[in-house]
């Protein structure tokens, strides 16, 4: 079973990378760009076949390793 963990900087936390990307896109001539936030996505193949259990496991992984919950928030999706 495939799960996807998306990790983003928490709202209000400075995101230097997102800022720089927004800047660069404007430099390339793209218009109408508002806030840009950059995060990580981790796709995991789990042997677990029960979606609820897979999700719970991935959430545990996110809390313990994948996300730094001091400054990042995460979201788990099961494919």
């Amino acid at each position, binding site marked *: 079973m495939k799960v996807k963990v998306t990790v983003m*900087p928490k709202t*209000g*936390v*400075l*995101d*230097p990378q997102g800022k*720089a990307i927004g800047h660069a896109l404007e430099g390339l001539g793209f218009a109408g760009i508002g806030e840009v936030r950059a995060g990580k996505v981790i796709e995991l193949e789990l042997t677990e076949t029960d979606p609820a259990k897979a999700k719970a496991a991935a959430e545990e992984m996110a809390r313990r390793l994948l996300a730094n919950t*001091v*400054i990042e928030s995460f979201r788990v999706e099961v494919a």
Partner: protein
Amino acid sequence: MPPVSLDPARAKQLSDEFGLKPDEYDRVLAILGRVPSLTELGLFSVMWSEHCSYKSSRVWLRTLPTKAPWVIHGPGENAGVIDIGDGLAAIFKMESHNHPSFIEPYQGAATGVGGILRDVFTMGARPIANLNALRFGAPDAPRMTRIIDGVVRGIGGYGNCVGVPTVGGEVNFHPAYNGNPLVNAMTVGIAPKDRIFLSAAAGIGNPVVYVGSKTGRDGIHGATMASAEFSADAEEKRPTVQIGDPFVEKLLIEACLELMATDMIVAIQDMGAAGLTSSSVEMAGKGGVGIELVLDNVPQRETGMTAYEMMLSESQERMLMILKPGREAEAEAIFRKWELDFAVIGHLTDTGRIVIRHKGIVEADIPLAPLESEAPLYRRPTAETPKQPVLDARDIADPLGPVAALEKLVGSLDLCSRRWIWDQYDSTVGGQTVQRPGGADAAVVKLEGLKRALAMTTDCTPRYCLADPEEGGRQAVAEAWRNLTAVGAKPLAITDNMNFGNPEKPEIMGQFAAAVRGMASACTALDFPVVSGNVSLYNETNGRAILPTPAIGGVGVLEDAAQAVGLALQPGLDLVLVGETRGWLGQSLWLREVAGREEGAPPPVDLAAERRNGDFVRARILAGEAVACHDVADGGLLVAVAEMAMATGCGATLDAPPPELPAHAWWFGEDQGRYVLAVRDTATLLAAAAAAGVPAARIGRSGGGDLVAGPGSSISVERLRAAHEATLPALMAAVG
């Protein structure tokens, strides 16, 4: 219209939460003649926090020697400034980021580096080197390897990106730091000595200009956090984490240096702890002028920020400056070129007050003089640390003999190779690094285009400081002086970072006072004044204090970089020990690691001998008589020689210990003021030593692949090296 006062009961309650003591709050009421507004209360609480006001430490810091003919600016400015010749000044300072690094190791350490860089380039210097003094807990303590990993990545992540080489530092491990690691960062910069920028504001009506990154809600109350001890609820202090953007810092350095090459700046200061509050209050206060800010003009990253939030935000990579009138457009062009925010956010006034406006409302209106002059100042009660007994080496059995003990020691946490750390720091960017980490007792960085070089080091031996804070303070300064001397540099001045526990406890305040006493004695005797520094108190977790850690950052000068020597041994040389060996085992690493005892009085520093020996060694190095030199510190003589050997793989054969000393005391005693020199012409050296009244003796000869510690005791340098290099990588393997 004066600001709107808080409800009195609410104000009292908040003043408590913000860390103001009841009598301090009463003083606020007296100064204002009314109940403060929220913003005003915020201002008072951060300005009067330990971190900003030095209220517990000031009475002691005043006793440190700060003057010498080469000192241009001592403590009181953003960083210390000394004359290093060729029309140049070295500007340097060390600062702690202990609490933030415990909460979020990567960002805490990274923003620590960012902050100290700003303290230095705000004075007009181009930063040329970074150092870092780190203290970690036992590696098996909860989170500790993650903290080590995060701190090292954070220091590298920031320093590498801004392009300032990280050239040195030190690391200790002790369980006393389990809940409170120390991250002290030091920056050294260079400026023309007649173009130093100060922070005192001047010129009524002159514009107050904000440059750098936008303001967000980061790190609000960071300064007060740095002034409180940790407890189990540290989790809740998390929202104060600040995020660093080294890319913006790099642009800020270039833009500020470009602006500083013009004559537009009246005064400039970085926004460090307590951000806009401390920078505006200090600049206006120092200049004896008033200041009025219109916060609507502050570049903001988030919507709906209040005056209170903007004044207390610790968003990184921001500076405040006073410009000459009419130069705003010219200055703005420079910052726009570097893609940085630039905003005129106020002007200087003749009212002697700080007035903060936001959305048409006056949010704060405080007289500046009492904010400073009535700031709390405490002479807190002190209790002396009881003296430890002087141990006699003859009473301590040697369970291992020299070789096995040596192998154990070079792999122990406090002596093992720090390569795992410095391999993650760019130490060569700039192309001027003559001695990189591991190569010498002090890092040596040449000044671009000149022969001249600076030597720099950080030193402190916290276990000595715990056993005897005065002796420990003295030793820390002496070791820094010795490390600079050992590369051939003339030691000029120090910065310090005083890391201690809760100053409200007499025994902690006693440690502080004694350490300052010891430091002062060494600074005086060695002509090695304090030009800048930082105090970090309340380093405690659940009531348990760290070891007293007065970290010293020393800077010295070499007129010709080519004269610098490293510690790496070459074959075919005599080894000469300079200084007296009495076999002092109290508080030695041998005693701790081999005999399993942490006790006794630490080795005393004889300042007259220290000076005599050091001046002698430096003169010999500058005369070209030493191929290599290493001071004898942690671990004693045999460890010092082993370190020289491991640097190249070249072995050495040492003579048997003198009969009057137990062998383990000779090999591992930590007597101070000693150096090992590798020389070609021993007779000349010994004659010079005799003439100077300096104890010196040939102790062996380099060559081969083994280290021989007297007849019958031998170990291959390769084997020592394997033990030396394995420890940290093995420890950190678990974190990946």
